[in-house]
């Protein structure tokens, strides 16, 4: 069986500016893999390239053995890739329910009810708030909504972009628990996270990006022990966070 995701020598340019250069990584089925790096290193771009929101100028992106490098975003969603974008990007003026319904845009109509049930089972608070405007939810609830929305088409690969950003420690722990549960249901996860310590604790393996290039990779434990990673991303030894050298 082919891995959930194979990214092979991918480059992405915004106009002429290079955002990714020769990135190669793999997510095995059922695995949680984390992508570390400073702001602007290309983490979000990697996720966007996978879900088809930006186009790779070079290289191949293969999902479960299918080349999706040139597939349109809606086809990638339909194929089973879910994406929780950076900043959550919930539809603030929609109700919670309407947010989930947009998430189910590619789902056949008769299955919508059952998918909504799943979402509400996973996040009971969303059921309570289903008729409330999403913009009025708390930060944690919005994040849950963003994840629940991405889960509506039952993806087999979930791309998570900074799910704990701006959340209180207690809440982000809750979100991480949710990720673990989703993974336990057989969903492979590619996680971009600023809280490197927690991400490495959750993931089996990790990759480190610097200005669009991979500079390190390996099992989480190994990365957590790497002095460069420790200094740059784990905030140890008094180094400034995010200032990769």
């Amino acid at each position, binding site marked *: 069986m082919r891995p959930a995701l194979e990214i092979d020598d991918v480059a992405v340019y915004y106009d002429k500016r290079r955002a990714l250069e020769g990135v190669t990584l793999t997510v095995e089925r059922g695995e949680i893999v984390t992508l570390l790096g400073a702001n602007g290193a290309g983490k979000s771009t990697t996720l966007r390239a996978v879900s088809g*929101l930006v186009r790779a100028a070079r290289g191949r992106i293969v999902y479960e053995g299918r080349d999706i490098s040139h597939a349109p*975003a809606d086809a990638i969603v339909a194929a089973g890739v879910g994406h929780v974008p950076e900043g959550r*990007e919930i539809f603030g003026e929609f109700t919670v329910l309407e947010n989930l*319904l947009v998430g189910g845009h590619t789902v056949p109509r008769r299955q919508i009810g059952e998918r909504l049930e799943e979402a509400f089972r996973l996040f009971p608070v969303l059921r309570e708030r289903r008729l409330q405007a999403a913009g009025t939810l708390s930060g944690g609830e919005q994040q849950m909504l963003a994840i629940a929305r991405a889960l509506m088409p039952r993806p087999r690969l979930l791309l998570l972009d900074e799910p704990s950003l701006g959340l209180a420690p207690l809440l982000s722990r809750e979100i991480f628990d949710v990720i673990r549960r989703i993974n336990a249901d057989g969903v492979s996860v590619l996680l971009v996270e600023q809280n490197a310590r927690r991400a490495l604790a959750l993931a089996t393996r990790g990759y480190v990006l610097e200005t669009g290039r991979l500079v390190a990779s390996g099992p989480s434990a190994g990365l957590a022990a790497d002095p460069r990673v420790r200094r740059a991303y784990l905030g140890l030894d008094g180094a400034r966070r995010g200032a990769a050298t």
Partner: protein
Amino acid sequence: MRAAALGSGAVVVLGWPWAAPRYFVFLASLIAINAIVAIGLNLLTGYTNQLSFGHAGFLAIGAYAAALLTIQAPLVPLPATLLAAGLVTAAMGLALGVPCLRLEGLYLAMATLAFGFVVVEAILNLDWLTRGNDGLRVPAARIGPWALTTDTSRYYVVVTVAALLILAARNITRTRTGRALLAVRESEIAAQASGVHLAAYKTLAFVVSAFYTGVAGGLFALVVGFLSPDSFDVFLSVDFVAMIIVGGLGSILGSVMGAAVITTLNDSLAGFQSYRPLVFGAILIVSMLFMPGGIASALQKIQPRQGDRA
């Protein structure tokens, strides 16, 4: 509170012709027509961030389609005529929307501006059909046995159609297609990540916007009774944009308010003659400076309501 406001609003709208001076019945019809255009334009600009300076062109297509149909086939009932005007214009919206997908911001504004000019040129060149510069007189439309010859009868037709289209726009989130369209406004990224085909929905926005404007064009022909290419100049397109900016981008209530404000403003400034464009421009700039989110957001600030998507 809301039901009461709606109820008294309905009473005023329905009772208007019996209470207001006659001219204001006509003016109210114009406001309702412009409100339909503003909602249509807002579906495009407010929801999918596509700016159009060519909606006078769509209005012209709808108006001429309805007028020619009324002349050539007087037996076609008015609702069918209006629907046909909307559909013809929607087809033009599709034809314009597809090539415009590649354009953004200023370039899109230029392309739609050009579209407006092309429509006027087409009306001039198809003079065997449209009577060109001489203008086209539109005979009174009929609903069954009644000929719509009074301002009051036309007013009721216009407000009925406007009410239906407002209702449709407000309930657009009840359909999958409508939700996807609005989702694009809220977040293009999240909409795409949810599997919404961006290009298709941006084009759809053009089509729906053109449909609304085409129906409004049919009503315009009915109410004004005379069409000429001079009716649909670029300033009319600019007026429509002003309506949604003053009213509030992406807001249906705002579209209606913006249409009311700009139409009334234009009407009351007609007496200022040569100073009209100057006064109009000044008022626009001032209102944009002090009310950047339009009337809709100013209202919301005064009276915040949870989850209201007016």
